[in-house]
C-alpha cells in the first residue's frame, strides 16, 4: 500500500480524506467500516477539561502493526488503517480511527471490531484526565476491555 497504514499523530484527522485514501485504487472494495473513538466530556460524573494521551514511541507502531496484520490473517480484507492521536485533546475531539475495507461487510465489521478490542488492551497508550477544577488522574483500565479481547480467542 502506498500510504502508511499506521499513523501516530498530534493533529486531528479528516474522515472523508482518510477513507478516500484507503479506498483509492482498490476496485474490489464493497464495504468500508470505520470506527472513531471520541473524548466523552463526562467520566464517572466529573467534567473533563482536557484529555492527554501518552504513548511509548516505537513500541506503539509495532503493536498496532501487529494487530493490523493479525486482522488481515484472520479475515479476507482489502486495506486497513489505524490512526491514533497523542498529546492534549478537548472533549468531543476525535482520538482514534480504525478503518477496514473488504469485498463484503461481514469481514470489515469483524476486523474493525477486532482491531479496536486488541488496540484497547495491547497498544501502549495511557489517558490522563484533567477536570474542570484542575484535578488530574490517570484513567483506569476497564475489565470489560480485557473480556472483549478474550472473546475473540473462542470465536
Amino acid at each position, binding site marked *: 500500500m502506498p500510504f502508511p497504514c499506521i499513523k501516530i499523530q498530534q493533529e486531528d484527522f479528516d474522515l472523508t480524506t482518510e477513507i478516500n485514501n484507503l479506498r483509492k485504487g482498490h476496485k474490489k472494495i464493497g464495504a468500508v467500516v470505520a470506527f472513531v473513538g471520541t473524548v466523552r466530556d463526562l467520566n464517572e460524573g466529573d467534567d473533563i477539561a482536557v484529555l492527554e494521551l501518552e504513548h511509548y514511541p516505537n513500541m506503539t507502531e509495532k503493536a498496532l502493526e501487529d494487530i493490523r496484520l493479525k486482522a488481515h490473517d484472520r479475515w479476507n480484507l482489502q486495506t486497513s488503517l489505524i490512526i491514533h492521536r497523542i498529546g492534549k485533546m478537548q472533549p468531543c475531539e476525535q482520538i482514534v480511527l480504525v478503518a477496514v475495507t473488504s469485498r463484503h461487510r461481514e469481514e470489515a465489521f469483524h476486523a474493525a471490531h477486532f482491531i479496536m478490542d486488541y488496540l484497547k488492551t495491547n*497498544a501502549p497508550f495511557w489517558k490522563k484526565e484533567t477536570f474542570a477544577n484542575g484535578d488530574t488522574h490517570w484513567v483506569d483500565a476497564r475489565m470489560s476491555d480485557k473480556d472483549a479481547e478474550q472473546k475473540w480467542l473462542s470465536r
Partner: protein
Amino acid sequence: MLNILYFASLKEALGQAEETISATEFSTVENLINTLSERGEQWAGALLHNTNLQIAVNHDIASRDTPLSSGDEIAFFPPVTGG
C-alpha cells in the same frame, strides 16, 4: 547495559522516565525488578508488589521470567488505556 523506561502513572510515582543500568548481572526481568525494588517502598510498590505491572522487552510484551541481555530496552507501565 540495560535501558529502562517508565510510563504514565508509574513514571509519576517513581519520578523517572528513563535510566540506564550498566550492570549486566540481570538474567531475567524478575531479577531486575528485585534489584530495583531494593531502592525503597515506592519502588517495591510500583514494581515488585504491583500485580497490574505491564512489561515490555524490546517493544514486545514480556513477563517476569523473560530473559534479559545486554543492550535490551525494558519498559514498565500500567495497563494500557488508549483508543
